[in-house]
């Protein structure tokens, strides 16, 4: 495009038709780039937030953003019907590259009308928007940079009537959940449609202090319940991420949130019809860490750092934890073994002894489905004493959620490996294996398993003998000591009821071998995952 004389809007022109229209294009593009204007942009910045164009620029590879719908907006015309200005649509969308791979990307422009929806023939973004079609029809990941509050009552006057909720529904959003990786960042105050959009994602992240998400904000809460609460206390990261698990991760800054999304996407294929990318590592596959031999304490009641253990086994610096602050008795991480992506599900002995509660069950279920959908093999690092016990656990419905985890584990199509580090008991222990599959179980010498532990089990099963004894406590200890040798994992290995017991230092080379082996099967099972039956 050559240089063209600038057309002043509202002025008659002496230029050719082509020059006029190219000038108009240039003018309209500039209008779009102004977003909601300098004042609104300054307000956005002073609230600690970036503009949507800045966000897209920061998360994408330099210069890779190709906008679609640049000219969408509301034109303002003079009495002679000449264009004066354009207020851009409150959403910016298009395609971009993230670490060399194409994604569909878009976000609300909060500087225009607070990012709320406006009347247009077709929506650019949000649920049912063009950006979702882009992702669906080209089979590429979708990144949502969410900063909007959804529907507004102002639409009522503009339309002249009210509409059923879901006039722009979540149909495509739901469809995408089984087709391509969807990642969402909550970058402002999200309620309504944008909040729903954030949750219909495989990975979501929000910003501590500056973003919130809730079903409805403080004014509606005040009106409905008479409850006065500020938006951070109602829907900030402490509530939405740490307590509710509504959003997966939190970040201190927007840039950190973008890094998390990029990290998440690096483990994902472009779509479910492709394998996830392999990233060869300099970390040797046969690395045997001496510290693994002693990381599990001799004393069974002493906890140890499972995060550290897992990181010693996986490719160096390859781990990315999802929901680190929710359901903490289980650790869910994407990682690599020999360059291949794996999903790690590791019980955390530091939190309630690794017992599975309603939150860790829920977290594990989401992570299993994520790995299953995107062809990422799962490795369970097991140290679970069973379900969480007690009144609070029962009130929360721990048992039902735990059985749901067992149900989902049994439906997995991805290869799974079960490595028992220490405890593996009861039904929670069942949620760490897929017995519909090869059921390959490995164990460290520190492993112990069963329906329930010998201690406690003896008290229940031998109650009569114990009560009848002159020294009941001594009797209980005597029976425990008699049964203990039978509980040795080596006896189970003799019966081939556990497939192999390994030296802890052998863990990395062995897992790398099996994950490489799994690639043949992954290639043969590409495509979408069907899910059957009613989850309990």
């Amino acid at each position: 495009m050559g240089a063209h004389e600038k057309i002043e809007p509202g002025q008659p022109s002496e230029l050719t038709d082509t020059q006029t229209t190219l000038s108009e294009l240039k003018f309209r593009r500039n209008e779009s780039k102004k977003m909601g204007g300098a004042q609104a942009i300054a307000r956005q910045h002073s609230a600690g937030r970036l503009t949507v164009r800045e966000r897209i620029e920061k998360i994408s590879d330099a210069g890779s953003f190709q906008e679609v719908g640049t000219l969408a907006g509301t034109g303002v015309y003079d009495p002679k019907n000449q264009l004066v200005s354009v207020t851009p649509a409150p959403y910016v969308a298009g395609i971009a590259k993230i670490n060399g791979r194409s994604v569909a990307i878009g976000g609300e422009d909060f500087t225009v009308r607070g990012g709320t929806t406006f009347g247009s023939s077709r929506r650019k973004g949000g649920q049912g928007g063009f950006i979702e079609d882009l992702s669906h029809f080209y089979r590429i990941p979708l990144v949502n940079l969410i900063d909007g509050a959804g529907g507004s009552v102002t639409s009522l006057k503009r339309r002249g009537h009210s509409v059923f909720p879901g006039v722009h529904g979540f149909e495509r959003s739901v469809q995408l959940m089984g087709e391509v990786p969807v990642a969402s960042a909550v970058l402002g105050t999200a309620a309504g449609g944008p909040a729903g959009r954030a949750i219909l994602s495989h990975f979501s992240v929000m910003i501590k202090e500056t973003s919130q998400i809730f079903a409805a904000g403080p004014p509606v809460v005040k009106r409905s319940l008479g409850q006065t609460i500020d938006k951070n206390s109602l829907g900030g990261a402490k509530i939405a991420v740490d307590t509710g698990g509504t959003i997966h991760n939190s970040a201190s800054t927007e840039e950190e949130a973008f890094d998390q999304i990029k990290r998440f996407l690096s483990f994902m294929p472009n779509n479910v019809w492709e394998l996830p990318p392999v990233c060869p590592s300099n970390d040797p596959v046969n690395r045997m860490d001496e510290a693994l031999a002693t990381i599990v304490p001799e004393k069974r009641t002493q906890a140890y750092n499972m995060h550290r253990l897992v990181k010693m086994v996986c490719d160096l610096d390859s781990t990315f934890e999802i929901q680190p602050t929710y359901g903490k008795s289980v650790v869910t991480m994407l990682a690599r073994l020999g360059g291949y992506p794996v999903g790690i599900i590791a019980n955390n002995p530091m939190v309630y002894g690794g017992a599975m509660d309603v939150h860790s069950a829920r977290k594990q279920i989401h992570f299993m489905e994520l790995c299953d959908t995107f062809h990422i093999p799962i490795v369970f690092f097991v140290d679970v004493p069973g379900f969480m016990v007690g009144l609070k656990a029962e009130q929360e419905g721990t048992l039902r959620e735990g059985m749901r985890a067992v149900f989902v584990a049994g439906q997995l199509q991805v290869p799974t490996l079960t490595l028992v580090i220490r405890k593996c008991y009861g039904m929670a222990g069942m949620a760490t294996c897929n017995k519909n599959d090869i059921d390959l179980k490995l164990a460290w010498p520190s492993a112990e398993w069963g329906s329930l532990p010998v201690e406690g089990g003896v008290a229940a099963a031998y109650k009569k003998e114990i009560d009848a004894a002159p020294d009941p406590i001594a009797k209980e200890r005597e029976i425990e000591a008699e049964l203990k040798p039978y509980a040795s994992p080596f006896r189970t290995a003799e019966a081939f009821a556990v497939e192999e017991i390994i030296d802890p230092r052998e863990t990395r080379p062995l897992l790398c071998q099996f994950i490489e082996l799994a690639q043949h099967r992954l290639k043969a099972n590409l495509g979408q995952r069907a899910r059957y039956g009613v989850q309990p």
Partner: protein
Amino acid sequence: MSKIDVASPVTGTVWKIEKQEGDTVSEGDVIMILESMKMEIPVESPKSGTLISVLVQESISIDEDQILCVVE
């Protein structure tokens, strides 16, 4: 020098306090051991520095996320 509040990962009790206020700590040093669900849970220093305050005593009950000590 930044201060880090060290929060409890669990609800439980303080079993043993291994370090005192004013002690120099290295990253990973065990400052105290908690007890929860019959497990002994070490609370490690998040970084090297000085343990500038210990906010709990042995045998007291503590809640998840309660600040136990501060390292600078």
